[in-house]
């Protein structure tokens, strides 16, 4: 092949090609497709369990659907909203948006400073038009009409060859609002990204009478965005003075309130309350009441009667009547062997032949139902442990006769009512149920960008209103001298097809125009 027969296509070059891609990307059609894609891509996020929301459910799903689950997992279907494809769609959409909005903003700024276009030569092609005659001179008609239109329209008078005309336009707010809306959406995205980078949140469980200080060590769980300096958390602290709850007779929750005394970073102390829906706000750090429960206060004594453990142990409620499983771990019984008492706390226990159960969340008849384990609790193994569960790997359950469990034996059951001292089976000693403390689960969150998320959302909302509800109209008027010395006035208008207000508006302008012209005339004649 000779050089000359090479097709010219490659001349388009990388640049031309890029320009083509850019033009496609910023076209309305592609924006539309991307919006549709966004809606469709969000669907699996509501159908499949999502890791950030419910990791346990994801594990279950993977166990039940090993093959499909694996594939879906690889493709990011269990964390749709951070998946590559979902991110790609919205990033493309926003790139498209920038490419679409910036040029339009420039054009709009220019239009704002320019006058509306000259009146078209012929009005008969517009659907909204009116014609009438008046006695006033064409120039006067145009001047008065310009004054009337000028209240709502940007308008001006033009002297034409054989006539006087007025051109007016209103509804610039439509485009302004549209641009504001799209730019603000971009702002929402940026603010949300900032929120992701700058937010920290943690959970802490605080017992009545105990304190909490805002530092990483005081949290049970803690996560922070990449840009958070975890050494520099706002140094407030507080003590949970009191927690009160209110339930209906049939165990529906009505109200929860935690009263705390706060020590602010500057040393000031004040009392505040935290309720569901009413977080406490400490200089931008919010403390939410996310849960509550009971911590039975117990004293465990060894066979010699020496106190081996004394304190309140939180049991986590798992249903609406606060059936609360938990573990009391006693590492030092005086000998080699450690013990763990695992079971449930029942705030209002009802005893039945098949066992005890809770019937109300308030502590009307508290009961501890426990079983005894002995061995090594595994606290020194260095592996982080769940304080609410017993690590039974190096422990054995003790039977009702105080021996390690064998098949056929009855497992130990220790039930203690409030104030009771109960013997543990075998030579393990006693447990005393001294009282019931309350605890609250708190979510602490610091998000410096949330204000901007709100502001940009509201800006988008306002822009949307301006864009959708501002009528955009043009109105023209032309006054021509007729052969018999009168003035022919023609009015025409143009708007979008869904705007029904144009014709009434034209009629109103005409009525006013006629009224003013005749008034002026009367004035002249006097």
């Amino acid at each position, binding site marked *: 092949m000779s050089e000359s027969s090479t097709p010219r296509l490659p001349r388009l070059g990388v640049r031309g090609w890029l320009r083509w891609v850019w033009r496609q990307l910023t076209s309305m059609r592609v924006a539309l497709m991307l919006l549709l894609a966004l809606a469709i891509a969000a669907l699996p996020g509501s159908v499949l369990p999502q890791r950030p929301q419910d990791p346990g459910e994801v594990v279950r799903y993977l166990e039940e659907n090993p093959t499909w689950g694996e594939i879906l997992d690889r493709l990011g279907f269990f964390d749709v909203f951070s998946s590559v494809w979902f991110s790609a769609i919205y990033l493309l959409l926003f790139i498209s948006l920038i490419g679409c909005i910036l040029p339009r903003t420039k054009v709009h700024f220019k239009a704002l400073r320019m006058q509306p276009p000259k009146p078209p030569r012929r009005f008969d092609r517009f659907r909204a038009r009116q014609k009438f005659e008046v006695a006033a001179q064409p120039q006067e008609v145009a001047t008065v009409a310009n004054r009337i239109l000028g209240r709502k329209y940007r308008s001006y008078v033009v002297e034409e060859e054989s006539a006087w005309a007025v051109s007016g336009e209103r509804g610039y707010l439509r485009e302004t609002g549209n641009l504001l809306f799209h730019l603000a959406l971009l702002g929402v995205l940026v603010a949300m990204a900032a929120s992701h980078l700058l937010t920290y949140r943690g959970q802490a469980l605080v017992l009545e009478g105990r304190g909490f200080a805002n530092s990483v060590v005081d949290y049970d769980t803690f996560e922070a965005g990449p840009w958070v300096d975890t050494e520099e958390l706002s140094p407030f602290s507080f003590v949970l003075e009191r927690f009160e709850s209110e339930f209906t007779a049939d165990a*529906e929750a009505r*109200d929860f309130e935690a009263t705390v005394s706060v020590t602010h970073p500057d040393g000031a102390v004040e009392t505040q309350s935290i309720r*569901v829906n009413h977080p406490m706000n400490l200089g931008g750090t919010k403390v939410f009441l996310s849960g509550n429960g009971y911590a039975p206060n117990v004293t465990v004594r060894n066979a010699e009667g020496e106190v081996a453990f004394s304190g309140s142990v939180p049991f986590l409620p798992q249903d609406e009547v606060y059936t609360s499983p938990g573990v009391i771990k006693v590492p030092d019984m005086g000998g080699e062997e450690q013990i763990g008492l695992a079971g449930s706390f029942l705030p209002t226990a009802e005893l039945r032949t098949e066992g005890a159960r809770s019937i109300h969340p308030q502590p009307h008849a508290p009961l501890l139902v426990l079983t005894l384990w002995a061995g090594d609790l595994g606290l020194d193994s260095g592996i982080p442990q769940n304080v609410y569960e017993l690590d039974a790997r190096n422990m054995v359950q003790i039977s009702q006769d105080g021996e390690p469990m064998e098949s056929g034996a009855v497992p130990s059951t220790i039930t203690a009512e409030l104030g009771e001292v109960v013997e543990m089976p075998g030579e393990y000693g006693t447990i005393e149920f001294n009282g019931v403390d309350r605890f609250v689960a708190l979510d602490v969150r610091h998000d410096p960008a949330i204000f901007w*998320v709100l502001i940009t959302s509201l800006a988008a909302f306002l822009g949307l209103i301006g864009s*959708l509800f501002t009528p955009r109209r043009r109105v023209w008027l032309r006054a021509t001298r007729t052969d018999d010395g009168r003035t022919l006035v023609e009015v025409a208008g143009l708007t979008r097809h869904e705007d029904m207000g144009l014709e009434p508006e034209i009629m109103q302008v005409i009525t006013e125009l006629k009224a003013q012209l005749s008034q002026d005339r009367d004035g002249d004649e006097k």
Partner: protein
Amino acid sequence: MISEAIVTYSNASDMLIYGAMAAYAVALIAFSIDLARLADRSSGNNRKLAGVGQAVTWVGFLMHGVAVLLRGLAVSRVPWANMYEFAITATLIAVAVYLGLQVLRDMRVLGAPVTGIVLLILGAAVTLFYVDPRDLVPALQNYWLIIHVSIATISVGVLTVAFLISVLQLIVDKHDRVRAAEDKGAASTQGASAAATDASGAATLASDSTVSAEAVSATATTGVETISSAQAGTDAAPAKGKRTWQRILKHVGTPQQLEGAAFRLNAIGFVLWTFTLIAGAIWAEEAWGRFWGWDPKEVWTFIIWVVYAAYLHARATRGWAGARAAWFAIIGYACIIFNYTIVNVFFNSIHAYSGIG
């Protein structure tokens, strides 16, 4: 702790809902016969039964309104905290929007579809979603709930009527296209040219202003639709079934008029939905300490919002304005119904406050 007054209010409310349903059923029958008559008579201008339907709808509406009010008194709060209450309030808004529309234009052809869909939703509400009046769990005791859910309810009510108009628009549009194809050549030149000039006028508005090139062609496309509806006005000798349709459709309006009406309502509904979304995020922030968590209910709120945004875009996109855009509004409404029924009942959501199950 349900006092006697509460029981009385709530019983009266339930009775009135049944009363309203009975009235809507009567109205539906009257409106349907009216439609049949429009189709039957060549004069087709005796709309006495539409008047009857309208009057009975008003009666139903008043009962319905009092029923919602009494439900609110029974629970001493706004009556839209569970699916049943949401349904009775949203349908009340839909009927109000329908009745309000009549002030602007005779839209009584919408009477049958509106009373029909309202009956359907109320029927589902009383049989499937009914719950006794009760107080709110703490997570729902927040004034953002009132704002969030009341705006959502109004939005759904408005979008319901918009949806019905979009469906009508598609029917008329389809019918016109078929007719236009049949009458090719027999078109009234006058109607067509009038529409064409208007379209070019619209193009002027777009072209020398800031609206993008696509918007120009979009408005021009709507102009083309005018042509087809103008053609539809010229009558050759259509088959009987088609003539029936045409007589009804004469009272409905052109696809553009319908498009305009549907757009106005969809735009209002979309703005309200946007507000619902923002207010919901504020509520979530106060209740759960995160303004957005991609919970199934939130995912669907987002999907609905995006679909309606796509609808508004489609209206301004070359080749998508008109009938195609209307499909987006219909899909959007289908998503709302899905969100309200399937998501509420079957999806595992922390917003699960349907009160049933």
